């Protein structure tokens, strides 16, 4: 994991005291509310429906056990004892008091954490694949580059007042787990025809009101060009992005309205000016950042751990969990474990202070003291010995955290929705729960197989509904909460945006509608065919017919 040096630590301390001063001036009345607004947003603080909400960054999803314990402390002392993992590798606290926020930030700084640029019209927390560094299909670990981007974007003086928010994702694996193509900038580590590893850089992707898949701006650049290409794209966007209408202010609209070729040529002309400048990345810096993400001291283990085999035969519940939530590791004898935070009855992504401490203990005991958070709002133990898997599962079971539903229909991605968020048109958490209750039989879920259900409470799309195999969007219909369903979305390599099936539904209709959609899929699928493939083969019509069929 990256370790702060004196520079990092000092800048963070200076940031905390800067914000303390700003908060004091606001509270004493010498800083106007509208002028305090972007300052507090860039320190992670929203004002929500019920209370302020503080969004803390988990850079590219990595957390140490020490940081987990600090988050537990904050949840307990400044919140109501819980936090919420978001879809962007952040954790949100929903009940802090404004005047205490500088104290929370000071607490976070003690463990090299912060809430910098987690909100506001600036470059946000850089996200990546939750399996970075342990995935067998990885070209190169994306985290050193995420850290390089984190430092470049942190307090970037030129890009703090962009037309709109700006999100960057990096992907180094063959299977894209980071929804890279629906980010303002998506960075793929790729190998070119000459065998050199560098980057492919996309821009103009995004969800929200106008969902768009990113377009390739640089097909291949050498690693040294990472920061200059990003800077060139950002400069064109900062100068030319629309500022007259916040719904048209994201870079995706600029790329669309300018035209891809014209946009590219503007970026190229900026890039020409800076590509050989001092911000060109050095090998030394790449090596320095890589040195923080070396392999932990793995043991030399053999494959086919006999104790695991025995446990799998003996305990079918464990075997079912193992089949869904345990993934292949690059190192023989190790596995990657996804801890599902989608237990029915709990808001997706919610964790209590006690659970955070439990995860810290688990990480210390079984996974070199580290965990990761995924954009699917789950928690990952990246380096578990296969001989420990059964113990890990029993431990999880004793805390009711053993849901074996990773990637299944009940592993729902869900924003906080109308229960908490001031922007939402409709609630989303109760929808997730009603679906989880409808599909409560594990065998049935396993039979249905991989199927992503994503729920957003409004068209800002924090729940990524456009890229869910089944997407659910809360809409306001004359003051009542309704839900629009879309089908066929995906955030993986074959990224696609869902298509709206038809008129929206009332809240209580949703579980049955989902059941009908699943029925059509189950009947139409050929052996082992994924939902997306069936959908693409048979089209939306059969789903429509079934869902809107009049009862006899």
């Amino acid at each position, binding site marked *: 994991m990256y370790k702060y040096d004196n520079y990092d630590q000092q800048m963070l301390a200076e940031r905390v005291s800067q914000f303390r001063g700003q908060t004091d001036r606001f509270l004493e009345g010498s800083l106007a509310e509208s*002028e305090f607004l972007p300052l507090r947003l860039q320190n992670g603080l929203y004002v929500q429906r019920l209370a302020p909400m503080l969004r803390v960054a988990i850079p590219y999803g990595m957390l140490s056990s020490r940081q987990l314990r600090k988050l537990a402390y904050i949840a307990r002392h400044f919140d109501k004892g819980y936090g919420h993992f978001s879809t962007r590798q952040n954790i949100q606290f929903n009940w802090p008091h404004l005047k205490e926020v500088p104290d929370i930030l000071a607490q976070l700084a003690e463990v090299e954490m912060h809430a910098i640029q987690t909100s506001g019209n600036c470059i946000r927390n850089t996200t990546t694949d939750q399996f970075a560094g342990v995935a067998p299909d990885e070209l190169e670990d994306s985290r050193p580059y995420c850290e*390089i981007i984190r430092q470049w974007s942190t307090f970037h003086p030129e890009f703090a007042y962009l037309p709109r928010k700006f999100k960057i994702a990096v992907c180094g694996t063959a299977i894209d787990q980071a929804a890279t193509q629906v980010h303002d900038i998506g960075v793929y580590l790729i190998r070119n025809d000459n065998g050199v590893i560098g980057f492919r850089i996309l821009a103009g992707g995004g969800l929200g009101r106008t969902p768009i898949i990113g377009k390739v701006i640089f097909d291949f650049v050498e690693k040294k060009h990472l920061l200059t290409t990003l800077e060139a794209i950002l400069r064109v966007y900062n*100068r030319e992005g629309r500022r007259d209408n916040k719904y048209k202010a994201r870079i995706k609209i600029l790329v669309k309205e300018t035209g891809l070729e014209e946009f590219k040529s503007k970026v190229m002309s900026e890039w020409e000016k800076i590509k050989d400048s001092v911000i060109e990345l050095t090998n030394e810096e790449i090596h*320095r950042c890589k040195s923080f993400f070396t392999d932990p001291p793995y043991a030399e283990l053999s494959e086919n751990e006999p104790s695991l085999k025995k446990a799998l035969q003996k305990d079918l519940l464990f075997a079912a969990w193992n089949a869904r939530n345990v993934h292949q590791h690059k190192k023989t004898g190790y596995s990657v474990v996804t801890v599902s935070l989608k237990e029915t009855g709990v808001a997706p992504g919610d964790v209590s202070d006690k659970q955070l401490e439990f995860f810290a203990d688990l990480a210390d005991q079984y996974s070199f003291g580290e965990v990761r958070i995924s954009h699917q709002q789950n928690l990952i133990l990246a380096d578990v010995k296969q001989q420990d898997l059964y113990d890990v599962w029993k431990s999880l079971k004793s805390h009711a955290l053993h849901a074996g539903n990773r990637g299944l229909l009940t592993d729902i991605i869900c924003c906080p929705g109308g229960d908490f968020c001031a922007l939402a048109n409709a609630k989303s958490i109760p929808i997730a729960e009603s679906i989880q209750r409808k599909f409560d039989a594990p065998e049935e879920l396993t039979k249905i197989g991989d199927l992503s259900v994503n729920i957003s409470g409004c068209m800002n799309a924090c729940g990524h509904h456009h890229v869910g195999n089944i997407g659910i969007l809360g809409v306001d219909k004359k003051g009542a909460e309704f839900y629009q369903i879309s089908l066929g979305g995906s955030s993986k390599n074959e990224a696609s945006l869902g298509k709206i099936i038809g008129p929206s539904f009332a809240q209580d209709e949703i579980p049955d509608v989902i059941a009908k959609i699943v029925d059509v899929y189950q009947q139409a699928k050929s052996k082992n065919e994924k939902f997306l493939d069936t959908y693409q083969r048979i089209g939306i019509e059969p789903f429509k017919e079934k869902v809107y069929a009049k009862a006899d």
Partner: protein
Amino acid sequence: MPKLIKDKALANDYWTWLKEATDPAILKIIPGKNLIVPLKLWRFDQEELLDYPGDISIWVNSHENIEYIGNRIHELPLIGLNFPVFSDGRPYSKARQLRDDFGYKGEIRAIGDVLRDQISYMSLCGFDAFSPRYDQDIESCLGAFQDFTTAYQASVDQPTPLFRRR
């Protein structure tokens, strides 16, 4: 004499900001000042400006293109960059462009909705003079330069980014 911040200290302001000038006739009404005139006036009414008894410099609004200044940029002692509203981020890129692309060495002055809490980033982008909004306490604006002792990025004061200095 009105005050401004120049090179991180309080200084007297010898310039008058001509906010609107659609017609060069206005120059006759205010003779003998040192004027910061709109880019447009400077581009299209050169002759009237040449006759003006006093120094002339220009200001550029956030939506205007810096390239319009043209070849005579280095004759200008000062270029004002206007913030119509403090949250408009375009002047930051303009200042970088003036310093990095055009090698402009004169004064770059932040004018308009200039507030204490943005001055530190402005300074890193190449602004060296600040004319804070009328209601700002100019003395406390000086505190902005103490907010951070270093930055990750290259700036006018520190032309080498942190990663090359570690």
